[in-house]
């Protein structure tokens, strides 16, 4: 079934393993494909991490399309859009999915413009009945509300899925996906945006941290952010921050967790002096466990937290650092 399938578009650059978000997106895609009565396919542009076909099989993917041009990835949006344009016009997929990240936020809507298709970002749920219009639920107002969009009747629709759209679940019956090369003509593609000075990634990324301790305005003053860093270190995790204190320069924006910062999914997220505005929760709502420390017992953060400590974070932080250090 080449036509009308559900296709996840991925590019991994030099990643060595398939990230969990891609598997979660395949799970969402599989459910949509089942409901539409079509195949689930996966197009991987540029290098594929080892184990890609096995992962595809666990997720019930029918075909893995490989676009094996060197260097295809996030730094080459023009080439990605062109390759996907060629794929979409040749195969006419019913539903094209993306894991939403910094790069797909450009590629997905540009592809939609190029093939004149509808596109919805921030997707959290897909409702794809076989005989009725496709609907997507997406996060809005930084997570305060959900909006349900309905696509007009069209051959192809595009959806970018948020990191918290679900967890990966293996298919009941694994598949044996065929791996096919999709050949594209990218000759004459010159990236119009030229990188003069690449970003200098320093150390591990918050997105990959298992433990994050984040601070907010409740810390009172810029000097107190050091307690957050110390607790993060004592727990073997990384330090994060809410947008207000980044905007005020207490720490740099690489630490900013939230809608327009890092979208994290750690096992443990400790929110210190953070009120729990939706814009912040958009960046940590997918954490498996949230611990909130706040002096206001009515702070919104406690609604999302698994464990709560009501008190002055400046008194509690030094004690927590001591307790965390004593642990080992």
């Amino acid at each position, binding site marked *: 079934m080449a036509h009308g399938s559900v296709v996840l578009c991925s590019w991994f650059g030099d990643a060595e393993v398939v990230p969990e978000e891609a598997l979660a997106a395949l799970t969402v895609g599989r459910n949509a494909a089942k409901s539409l009565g079509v195949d689930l396919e996966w197009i991987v542009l540029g290098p594929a991490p080892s184990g890609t076909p096995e992962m595809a099989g666990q997720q019930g993917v029918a075909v893995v399309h490989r676009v094996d041009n060197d260097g295809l990835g996030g730094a080459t949006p023009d080439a990605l859009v062109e390759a996907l344009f060629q794929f979409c016009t040749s195969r006419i997929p019913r539903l094209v999915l993306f894991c939403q990240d*910094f790069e797909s936020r*450009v590629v997905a*809507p*540009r592809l*939609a*413009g*190029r093939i*004149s*298709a*509808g*596109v919805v*970002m*921030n997707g959290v749920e897909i409702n794809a009945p076989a005989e009725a219009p496709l*609907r997507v639920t*997406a996060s809005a*107002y*930084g997570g*305060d*509300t*959900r*909006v*349900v*969009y*309905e696509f*007009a009747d*069209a051959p192809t629709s595009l959806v970018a899925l948020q990191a918290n759209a679900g967890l990966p679940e293996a298919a009941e019956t694994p598949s044996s996906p065929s791996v096919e090369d999709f050949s594209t003509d990218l000759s004459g593609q010159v990236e*119009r*945006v*030229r*990188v*003069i000075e*690449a*970003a*200098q*990634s320093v150390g591990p*990324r918050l*997105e990959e941290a298992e433990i994050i301790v984040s601070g907010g305005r409740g810390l009172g003053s810029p000097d107190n952010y050091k307690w957050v860093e110390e607790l993060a270190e004592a727990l073997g995790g990384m330090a994060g921050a809410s947008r207000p204190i980044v905007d005020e320069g207490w720490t740099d924006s*690489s630490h900013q967790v939230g809608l*327009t910062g890092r979208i994290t999914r750690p096992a*443990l997220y400790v929110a210190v002096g953070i*009120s*729990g*505005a*939706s*814009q912040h929760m958009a960046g940590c709502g997918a954490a*498996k*466990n949230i*611990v*909130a420390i706040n002096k206001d017992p009515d702070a*919104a953060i406690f*609604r999302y937290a698994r*464990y709560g*400590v009501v*008190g002055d974070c400046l*008194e*509690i932080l*030094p*004690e*927590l650092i001591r*307790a965390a250090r004593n642990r080992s």
Partner: protein
Amino acid sequence: MKIFVCAKQVLDPDAVNNYALAGRLEIGEDGKSLTQASIPELVNAYDEQALEVALRMRDNGTECTIHVVSVGEDRTAILRHAASIGADEIAQILSSHAEPDGHLTAALLAAHIQAQGGADLVLCGRQASDDDQGVVPALISEILGIPLVNVAKAIERVGEDLRVTRVTPDGDEIVEVSGPAVVTLSNEVGDPRYPTAANKLKARRVQPEIVNEADLDLADENSAARVQVVKQFVPDVQENCEFIEGATPAELADRLMERLREERILS
């Protein structure tokens, strides 16, 4: 240099958030709009930052005319504000659709830009704070066939090219692009300027140009919405917080650590 800044009018996201946190956010009878009359409408903050970057380019010696454009009705207040801080031309585009989607909005903006003789630079906020979609700038870039640089905090003219500082997850990245281009701006731009009292008064007499969809040369394939909002709701929060008890900060800290280890969240 001709710069177009696209500005969306949105419900104040902080007010929406306050209602949401208080559990009092209400959806209207149509099942999709927020109805609290006390929530003010503002210009999308990222779009304000896009205008700020255009004004900074002028401050830094780039000769330019700055056009600010908004799609929708009753945009006079936000457009006059733009005029009061330095926009040269302000225009409001009226769509024939009650709720134009991102595609139609982009098509209207692109057609207006073309009708004005084209742009050297199109600036937009990275996304709107109401729907968070962020697709309009990319769609404009595709309709006009020009490159897109997203999530920037500064733009500098270098000869005929633009040097743009992007805020990426790995830190700042500097790119160059030959214009025309679409660039989206983020909150890292910093605070936008305020008008002087005199300029504020002066702007009260400025009327935005009104552009109707029928006046614009929209390609047929661009004149229909591709997605429509059918519903909006406030998501449930599970609320199962276990509050740690203790008489002193030390006790609270020890009990919390104990619980995290009992539940195997920490080793």
